[in-house]
């Protein structure tokens, strides 16, 4: 028995030593590499966070990180696809990309991802990779092909000086819109936040919730979505500009909210409102809430394409972003406010302090108040829903 224990301990230690040696080799390979990191660039706070950690990557690991700011990550995916179809398996233009959902599902399906890497990252030990929201992305298994970077959950934003009792269900929202015409809207699908709003409506209206967790079946579409369309048809009549125009994005919607034109905004970042109060874009009286049945939540990830030119540098960069230091700073509303993917119970006491000392701000709901998020429908449902939305409402503006 003692012999077995010794053998097991020695074996485990050996594996760790081999992994450490492997990681040192990765770090050595990464020295001097330039990593092109494709990520959404529409927020100055996120851009500044990435820029700051890019400087740290250069100082600590001699890895230069170029933040390629994109409006839509699909442009980057197209470049990777083009490279694949012309048989270019190296020297790709994308090294790391910020991704989730249907884009990941499509890249995985088309073989555009590299080999699994997440378990090899030293920082991943502090992450519970078996957590269902991390092990699957929109119900598609991640299989170690993308590393979790942050968590998201839909929250609604209101100003308590203007609205004392926010509507905490889709039915209540419809009533509110009827009583306050033009004061509510949602971002236009296929914008990510607009589609998320549709998913929330779907969860709160459909009776076939279990079908949403399975891949899309055309024969089920009508039955699953018809209550959602009936709801939206009623809601649109009372929306801002009578539903003839929608904000381009959640950012534009938040501008309208900050201007006092809308009563309710939405965000996929529970700390977003606090962050905006801190930097002066929202009034101090702004707060967040979720619906009584919960709201849709997910995880966003970092992936390395199959043809990444600087794979070693990409691994070092992702590992750095998953360290407790980087994750705690990211979760700070005065920096970005994006919730961490780290399982704090796996951290040492010093690292735990980093998270416990965070002041999440006046508008952030506690994890207990947010509850367990509703899961995303399977990735294959997204395109048919967005397409049906377009077919139903496009061209009805005049």
């Amino acid at each position, binding site marked *: 028995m003692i012999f077995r224990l010794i053998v097991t301990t020695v074996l485990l230690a050996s594996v760790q030593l081999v992994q450490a040696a492997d990681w040192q080799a990765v770090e050595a390979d990464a020295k001097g590499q330039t990593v092109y990191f494709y990520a*959404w*660039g*529409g*927020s*100055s706070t996120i*851009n*500044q966070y990435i*820029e700051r950690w890019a400087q740290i990557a250069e100082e600590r690991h001699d890895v230069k990180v170029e933040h*390629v*700011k*994109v*409006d*839509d990550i*699909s*442009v980057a*995916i*197209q*470049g990777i*696809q083009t*490279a694949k*179809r*012309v048989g*270019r398996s190296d*020297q790709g*233009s*994308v090294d790391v990309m910020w991704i989730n959902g249907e*884009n990941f599902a499509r*890249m995985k399906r*088309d073989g555009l991802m590299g080999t699994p890497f997440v378990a090899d990252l030293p920082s991943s030990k502090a992450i519970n990779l078996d957590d269902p929201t991390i092990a699957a992305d929109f119900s598609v298994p991640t299989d170690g092909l993308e590393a979790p970077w942050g968590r998201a959950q839909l929250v609604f934003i209101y100003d308590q000086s203007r609205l004392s009792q926010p509507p905490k269900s889709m039915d209540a929202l419809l009533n509110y819109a009827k009583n306050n015409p*033009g004061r509510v809207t949602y971002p*236009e699908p296929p*914008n990510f936040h607009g589609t998320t709003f549709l998913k929330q409506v779907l969860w709160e209206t459909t009776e076939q919730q279990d079908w949403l967790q399975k891949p899309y079946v055309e024969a089920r579409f009508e039955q699953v979505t018809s209550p959602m369309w009936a709801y939206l048809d009623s809601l649109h009549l009372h929306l801002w*500009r009578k539903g*003839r*125009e*929608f904000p*381009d*994005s959640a*950012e*534009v919607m938040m*501008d*309208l909210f*900050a*201007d*006092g*034109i809308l009563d309710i905004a939405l965000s996929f970042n529970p700390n977003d409102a606090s962050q905006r109060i801190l*930097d*002066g*874009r*929202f*009034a101090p009286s702004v707060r967040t809430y979720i619906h009584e049945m919960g709201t849709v939540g997910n995880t966003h990830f970092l992936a390395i394409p199959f043809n990444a030119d600087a794979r070693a540098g990409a691994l070092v960069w992702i590992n750095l972003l998953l360290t407790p230091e980087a994750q705690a700073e990211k979760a700070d509303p005065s920096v970005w406010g994006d919730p961490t993917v780290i399982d704090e119970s796996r951290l040492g006491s010093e690292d735990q302090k980093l998270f416990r000392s965070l002041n999440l701000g006046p508008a952030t709901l506690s994890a207990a108040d947010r509850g367990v998020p509703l899961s995303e429908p399977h990735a294959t449902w997204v395109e048919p829903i967005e*397409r049906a939305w*377009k*077919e139903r*409402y*496009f*061209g*009805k*503006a*005049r």
Partner: protein
Amino acid sequence: MERALFWEGSVNWIERFFVLILILPVIGLLDEAYGRYSGVSWIQGLTRLWSEPALIESLILSVWVASVSLVISLFIARAISAKTLQVNDSQLWRSVLLAIPHSALAIGLLLALSAGGVGWRWISVIFELPLDQQYLFPRDPWGIGMIVSLVIKESAFLIAIAIPITKRLPLRSYQVIARQAGLTQIQCHHQLIWPQAIRLMWPAIFVVFVFGLTNLEVSLILGPDQPQLIGVRLFQLLTDPDALNRQAGALGLLIMLVGLAVVSGVFHRSVRARVKDRLSDAMAFTHGATVLRWALIAAFWLSIVSLLMWSVTMRWSVFEPLPHVSLNALTSLKTLASPFWVSLSIGLATGVIAIVLAVCILEYLVSKGQKRLHWVWWAFLWLPALPMASGLLAWIYFFGGSPGLWPVVLGHTLIALPYVMIVMSDSWFDRDRRHDMFLKQAGLPVGRRILLIWVPRHSRLLVLAFALAFAVSCALYTQTILLGGGRVETLMTELMVTVSGERRLAALTGLANLLLPLIAFALALWVNRLSWSHRAGMQGEGYADFR
């Protein structure tokens, strides 16, 4: 005798080469459209395209926006052209308008006139309208916001083309005839001069129509969104990760190109037919144009003020009279440093290459006895940016290259070069051929002739053409994003990323986009003012010869 704006004779090897460059992108598109990458037939691609919701509506809306903005731009150009013949031409004002990128102006208008915008707040107070609502534009279903933005820029472009053409016409004889017929000066312009000018400037008119129909930047910022204009719809298809969608997008672009070819034929025929002015009261329309012009100037300044204000505004509720302003907002400026230097470098490289190429090509054309520019140069401006950039990218891959900085410079040069050729060609073709003969007889080699005589002689024009090429480069988005693979970050790509992001960052980026080409034009005008001031022979336009 009237002279054609462009030459229609046989094609020399340079022009054949540039025709080839024009055709190559289309072949690249054909490859995609035929289904090489999707693995399905073109009929399935067409079926996919046809199944796109409200695509025809997008097309009709785009034709409406392009046509209305063109008609209004022509209307204003006609009025200003008539005035210019009587009073001094305001080249400075026109240069400013030409230098500003379409998208920077569009973002300014968006921040001025959308709900909560600076202008909308003022309008609401003046007309006692509810502050928290928005009635018409931008992003309105009829594309009015976009039409306003296009008209401001395109009327300046058409005026810049119309004035030199008008001045080349035998104005004195027209005026004599007009006086004999009892027409006023304005009537003479509108009924005798302008129809002739229109006939000569149809390539430029077609450029305006094509840009209005297919542009991406202004459509994304100000265009309607339910549905979007056809350029945006096709761009979304063409950049979709799904190969079938991309095939549908390529087919859509090819269909649009065929459509544009047909429209170009109709344009050509209709303007060559005898143009008759049907306006019964020319003066009333001229006053209308003046009002319209001032309204557009007001909109322009409003957009500039909006950019400035939102750059430093943290928040501003419609119920508060003044914004919460903080200079902390300007900390985002440091994130624009890198795109600024990239824009500057690409702009300088594009300008230098375009000028060198244009001088060499023009010298060659002059030596071959060519008198006017071939339509090929205009055709570069007729080809929508999207198929051209997509097709070029396909060829860059085919030759083993990758998207990056140099493909972007190539893409920018291919657009800037025709502009430079159009601006410079008249002066080059109009020079006294006897001077060439004297220099040849003196045994001066061609290189020295260009460097010692012709370049200094045309230096003022070259400086302005360089500023124009620089401004064109600063304003290009589609070429930069596709040929740079997203890696090349210019102020323009930053602007397009921030349009749907933070308003403060978008305003700041818009302002930076506006300033860079403006500085280039200001420098060009300043250099021209200072240079050769002590040399009568270098005053341009044959000043010394005339004396």
